[in-house]
């Protein structure tokens, strides 16, 4: 495979809101900016292109800005290695790309946390954001019965979206306590924009039961999920459904930052006031440096975009707004902390590692992530522990290990592409 080469002043990995804002602000000063993303299109998860519905005003504004700017976007590329300092290599379905950069901004976003329970591996048991992504991409959902479960504000957004697209939302099961949500609600009062969003959502979800202190204890079905059993306090009952959309809040994607040697603190990439990581010239913005939602991601992106192009005074102007959203994010993350009771969901037979089908019972005798990997293959499959790693951290308190290339599985040949010759195709 021939390697396509690019040279840029600033490379942004991730084209969600944070990456888009960073790229746009960095390009303002005339710097060459290149954005790469694993997804085919710009927008990340929250602004994922919708086959049926136009994006909202904010999304359209930013995506238009990027389209009309000098920023170059390359989609469908997973960044998997740093072959040498100042170069990142990425693989696409039918190409390999190397990007040489002066500064790097990581905006690798977050993923859903999945917790194992009996039946969670059945087809049509998806993440909550996972199902939304599938529907946005064109999966017909009209008339389908859906249970939305897990934790976090995403559940409400997903339920609202799916309902709008004609799905029949049976129930929304939120694991956290009502008390914690009320506390969060009080914070909303100080934040008119969020309050409006919450109110709109509430109207949209009218007639759908939203149960707190409630979670799925099992899912069943022959070839795909047909029914889910929910628990709320002492009560346990079955709900039939076509899909169970279940995710337990979000986790920062820190793998690429770890590969590059960035300091990680409490599961997020550590950054200074200018969003610079512990590695000089390497910035991190958005969910990967702490789950905080759209508004925070945008502000962080702008700060990094300006800081990376030496417009530190402009960056500074955004600090107070960032402080506000960070405070809000902290409250949000506290409200949706996982209940200890969820550790009891897996039975001995429940697979914890879906890639290698490692049951809970085989992990109980292990003492660390490393010994579990070595002895049971937990985390050794193609998801590289992205699903079972956080699950075992929650269930057993294990810490996962250092990240090595490839950051995603890639074809062996992508490590050794042939060069395009003496005059590399640069942009």
């Amino acid at each position, binding site marked *: 495979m021939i390697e396509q080469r690019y040279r840029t002043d600033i490379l942004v990995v991730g084209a969600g809101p944070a990456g888009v804002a960073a790229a746009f602000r960095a390009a303002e000063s005339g710097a060459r900016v290149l954005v790469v993303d*694993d*997804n*085919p299109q710009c927008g990340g*998860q929250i602004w994922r*292109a919708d*086959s049926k519905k136009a994006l909202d005003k904010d999304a359209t504004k930013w995506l238009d800005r990027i389209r009309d700017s000098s920023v170059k976007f390359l989609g*469908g590329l*997973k960044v998997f290695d740093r072959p040498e300092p100042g170069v990142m290599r990425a693989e696409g*379905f039918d190409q390999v790309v190397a990007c040489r950069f002066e500064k790097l901004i990581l905006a690798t976003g977050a*993923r*859903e946390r*999945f917790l194992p329970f009996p039946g969670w*591996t*059945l*087809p*049509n*048991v*998806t*993440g909550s*954001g*996972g*199902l*939304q*992504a*599938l529907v946005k*991409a*064109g*999966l*017909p959902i009209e008339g389908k019965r859906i249970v939305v479960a897990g934790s976090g504000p995403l559940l409400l957004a997903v339920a609202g979206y799916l309902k709008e697209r004609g799905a029949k939302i049976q129930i929304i099961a939120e694991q956290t306590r009502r008390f914690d949500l009320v506390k969060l609600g009080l914070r909303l009062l100080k934040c008119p924009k969020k309050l409006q969003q919450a109110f709109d959502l509430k109207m949209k979800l009218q007639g759908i039961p939203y149960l707190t202190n409630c979670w799925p204890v099992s899912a069943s079905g022959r*070839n*795909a999920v047909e029914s889910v059993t929910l628990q709320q306090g002492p009560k346990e009952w079955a709900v039939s459904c076509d899909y169970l959309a279940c995710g337990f809040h979000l986790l920062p994607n820190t793998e690429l930052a770890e590969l590059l040697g960035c300091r990680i603190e409490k599961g997020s990439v550590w950054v200074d006031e200018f969003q610079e990581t512990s590695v000089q010239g390497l910035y991190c913005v958005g969910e990967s440096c702490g789950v905080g939602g759209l508004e925070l991601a945008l502000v962080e992106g702008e700060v990094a975009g300006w800081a990376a192009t030496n417009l530190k005074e402009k960056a500074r102007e955004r600090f107070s707004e960032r402080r506000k959203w960070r405070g809000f994010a902290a409250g949000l993350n506290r409200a949706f902390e996982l209940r200890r009771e969820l550790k009891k969901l897996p039975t001995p037979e429940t*697979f914890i590692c*879906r*890639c*290698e*089908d490692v049951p809970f019972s085989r992990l109980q005798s292990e003492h660390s992530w490393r010994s579990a990997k070595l002895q049971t293959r937990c985390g050794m*499959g*193609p*998801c590289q522990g*992205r*699903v079972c790693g956080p699950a075992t951290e929650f269930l057993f308190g294990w810490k996962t290990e250092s990240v090595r290339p490839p950051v*995603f*599985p890639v074809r062996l040949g992508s490590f050794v592409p042939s060069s395009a010759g003496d005059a590399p195709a640069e942009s």
Partner: protein
Amino acid sequence: MPEFVTIWINGSAVRVPAGTPVSIAVLMAGHSEFRRSVSGEPRGPLCGMGICMECRVQIDNQAHCRSCQILCQEGMTVRTHD
């Protein structure tokens, strides 16, 4: 760009709007089971965003491709149970 493309899933032609990910085409063709796990369980898409690897299929004779991150292209051949 054409409005629709035709791809082949397990030997059957499936017509989908251009820009549709392979995963959606497979689901629309009626397969909720994309693959069997190493112990033989049926599996389908979980995360929808290229992380979990549960939606792997064979595309144009290449095994273990993440169907949710790859867009359908005219004439593509897809096999489930990669």
